[in-house]
């Protein structure tokens, strides 16, 4: 059973226990087993719709560079900004697991939800918006409601080869993993109270001494026979915006083309 077959009335008998994801950035290798598991389980067609988005971006100049990764499904907020702004009552919070769901029958594709969501979770199959007859309706991560109802975990968390993900009642996640609810570059969690907790990337350390400035010089030189690639380390450290493609977390791209670009791995 998918969200499309679930009615708002059938799930009110249970007491709500807000369920939440846990993402351990320190273990994540951005292999995307989670993304493909999600695509596969939900039969997501090729195209811009991603119930689960993966972000990878870099910070710093060679060799003092750091990669970041982010697991970005819908965070099924306790105070969902999307729900409040939907003029058609299409978005609702399910009563047992605290899942935020959308009724595609009611959705008119106005994209107020997209504007409101600080995380970019609402997804649209095309950029055709309001007013058009071929308007793209919103779809998004369902927390694998169908699996939850059968007593099983969401497919993404079960998929992780690095065991970087977990899922369960939010209080349990917080007590087990701490209550960090935003990684670097993410919105203030106080705004919507996302049902996610994080463990950040483990910082690198110098087990043995390493002089990055010296290393940059050495990479520029090419021995006696060849001219140097550069003589001023600024060639490496002065990075104009736009030179490096993914240099920041871009949770909300304005169109599907850029959203896809921001969520592609470069390890293919």
């Amino acid at each position: 059973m998918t969200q499309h077959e679930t009615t708002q009335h059938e799930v009110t008998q249970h007491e709500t226990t807000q369920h939440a994801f846990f993402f351990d950035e320190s273990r994540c290798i951005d292999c995307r087993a989670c993304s493909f598991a999600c695509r596969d389980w939900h039969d997501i067609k090729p195209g811009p719709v991603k119930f689960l988005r993966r972000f990878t971006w870099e910070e710093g100049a060679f060799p003092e560079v750091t990669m970041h990764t982010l697991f970005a499904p819908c965070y099924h907020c306790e105070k969902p900004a999307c729900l409040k702004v939907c003029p058609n009552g299409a978005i609702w919070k399910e009563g047992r697991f605290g899942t935020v769901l959308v009724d595609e029958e009611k959705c008119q594709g106005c994209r107020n939800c997209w504007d409101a969501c600080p995380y970019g979770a609402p997804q649209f199959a095309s950029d055709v918006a309001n007013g058009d007859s071929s308007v793209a309706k919103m779809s998004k991560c369902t927390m694998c409601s169908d699996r939850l109802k059968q007593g099983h975990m969401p497919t993404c968390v079960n998929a992780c080869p690095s065991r970087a993900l977990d899922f369960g009642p939010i209080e349990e996640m917080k007590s087990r993993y701490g209550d960090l609810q935003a990684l670097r570059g993410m919105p203030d969690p106080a705004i919507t109270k996302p049902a996610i907790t994080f463990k950040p990337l483990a910082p690198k350390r110098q087990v043995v001494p390493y002089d990055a400035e010296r290393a940059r010089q050495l990479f520029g030189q090419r021995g006696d026979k060849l001219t140097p690639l550069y003589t001023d380390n600024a060639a490496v450290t002065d990075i104009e915006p736009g030179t490096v493609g993914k240099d920041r977390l871009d949770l909300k791209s304005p169109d599907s083309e850029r959203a896809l670009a921001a969520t592609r791995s470069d390890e293919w």
Partner: protein
Amino acid sequence: MTNSTAKVMHTEGEEIKYTICQQNGCFTGCLLACHVKDGELLAIDVGDSINADMPREDVGETAVREGMVQHRPCARGRMWRKTLYHPNRALHPMKNIGQKGEPVWEQISWEEALDTIAQKIVETRDTYGPYSISGGMFFLDFAAWAGFGHSTWGCASTAGHTLADTVVVGVDLPMPFGHSPTPPRGTEPPDLLNAKLIIAVGWNPAVSYTADNLVLALAKERGIPIIIVDSRYTSSVQAYADQWIPIRPGTDIALLLAIAYVLFKEDLIDHAFVDQFVEPEGLSGWRSYVLGETDGVKKSPEWAESICAIPAETIRGLARLYGQHHGYSDGNACFFKLHFAPARIVGGENVGRAGIYLQALTGNIGIPGGHYGGGECTVPFYMPVPMVDWQRTPPSHPDPMSMPLYDARGWVDAVLFRDKLDSGEMNEEEYRHRIGSASNWPLPNIRMAFNQVGTDIGTHDNQRMWEALKKLDFVVKAVYHTDRPETAYADIVLPLADPFFEASGDAMGGGGFFYPGFMSVSAYGNYFILSQKVIEPPGEAKPLAWINAQIARRLGILDEYNPRLADVLDDTKAWDERHIELQREAYEQWRMHYAGWAQASGVEPVEAPSFEEFWDCPIFRAPLKREPTYGFKEQIQEGVPFNTNSGRIEFHSTFLTDPDMADKEYVFPLTGAPSGICFGGSKPAVIPPQAEYTEAWDSPLGEMASEYPLRLITPHSFFRQNTAQDNNLWIEDEARHALWISVADAKERGIRDGDLIRIVNPQGEGIMPAYVTSRIGAGTTCMVYGAWYRAGRGQKRTEAMPDGIDLWGSANNFTSSRMYPWVKGNLHCASLVQVEKISGGER
């Protein structure tokens, strides 16, 4: 929720079937739970046979040590549906009524295809002899019964690490199954937890041989220092390394020599180990070389830093830390691993050997938490797995796998230079030298090729291979997808069923059903999986085993070659049922012997389920209630001599001092078993008997780099296994195939991320987007390997690329097929290129 036992359901009325994802080159067998309804595969789930619904699998270290954890498939295992259900699946046999390279296809019947192939085999064999038909590893499975065939294996056997393993510690790495005199003794992942320090060079387990990942994460969280030396800031660096030390690609030898220099200079040697296990004369000679006493060049950190671009202070610090870990003498084991890539270059034999030397000098071989320093060996057999008794009659012709004609895919040169041999322009000795053929081997005369997918684009210098295919009289290709580039060079194309999803146990040769975990390097050897047929193949696609049997029938050898399937060839249902019968028979045979086998390998047996119970979720797994394995335990702890002339670790190989290497084949001294390595590159020998620094012809610091200044490395992908799944319908939404280029090199050329760029070198030319990043240093570029050659119609043709320049980024358009000077073959996974921005226009 965590204790649910019921299987998760995707759709009402479905059933769950199981198969394995175990592609060639990965071998880390992962269980796939396939949700099927009305013959359609709806979803693939992680195999939930153990620790179901426990995302973190925090089941304690005992479970990790015993291998009682899930083998979760990576992205490659989860994306199969969009590769299987692909609009370009090959559906019917086709014949090419146009030209090879510019085909015009006409659909034909299986009858016509198989009759034609059988007839061509007979004609070719009878006209040109038994060594005239080249085939894929598993395709000519029946050849020996039809009086022809030869080995087409050999590429990896000429990589630098293989030479290193063979001459230094007496193991032939790529031939662990039967050919090598030493039993395989790879590292089982939990042994990493016994290390006190982990140093990895060119190792990216996040992508390749993934069973180590969970253990590496635990090792790091436990505080074991992990240092990764790599040209790229890889995902392994990101997740597992405390420290990344970037290196100029292709210069690892300088780093290793300089570490040795510090170890010698500051006497950080594990003398107890070295005195007992290292052959002293060779060690003494190499020590002199490193200290500069023989050639006047001290291989000091100051010498090395200008080559490898790692500051001298760092090399010294690394050597000192490393030299404080003498696993043999003080129990502070260092797991030091120089993985395959750094030795798959020109000069790789030096790199591979030096890695092993360092682990010997520090006493870290053959002890828990240590490593022998090389790429890896496969892990040992925990126990035999079920094997079907095919009841074949022994063939008259030798087993093709044991009959080499040339090494390292020399068939391209064998075809391209054959005219010169026939016209007398080249004599036999020159021809044999060119193709890497020993004088006592049969002389090939290749006229026909018979391959399944992947055999071709995994090979260096694609364009020369296309030329060779065009020259052949007859080419058969069996493929899954018609957009595979090699399809265009066939006379007949056969549609293949996927071996893991669409066939009854067909993969890896058509004979294997039960896939063990131990086939991989760095894997757990405590389980095997039976692959069930999940769905019917599309169109008229057929399993490889069926194709082989059909041809065998036409050649009149079916009863000898495959008697147990002979009567079910024309009935798909009966064929599938027969397979299950044979699987049951094999399993029950195995079950009778299992407990005894387990006890013999030192493991307490568990109760083996009945076949019916096993069939319900066909994975058998038993806890490894013993210490994890690691290489060379017998030699270090039990007094077994190394399989070298001296019985010790040899820094100096007397085998390699022979000035005439022509026609020399390495034979393991203690057993007399031949190795897979066939030398014979040259007279006099130019391979030094010990690891030394030499500047390769394609060095990033040599002459060639003045025109082609960027070193190209071609690592494996997260999303392809070798070349499989390049056309997956989901993949372009999740990943971009772009050339990695450093910030400095990009700025120099006015390139910004996403710009289209032209890549060119003597072998090839291509166009693809740029990925500009600080994750690599200047002078380094990276084209992830496995993309298919795709030339657009009407694209520019050049002398190097007569079939059109590459528009997708197929790495082997840029690697060279030039053989190493010392060995018959090559395995270059790197090259030099130049890159420029393309202004405007599209691919």
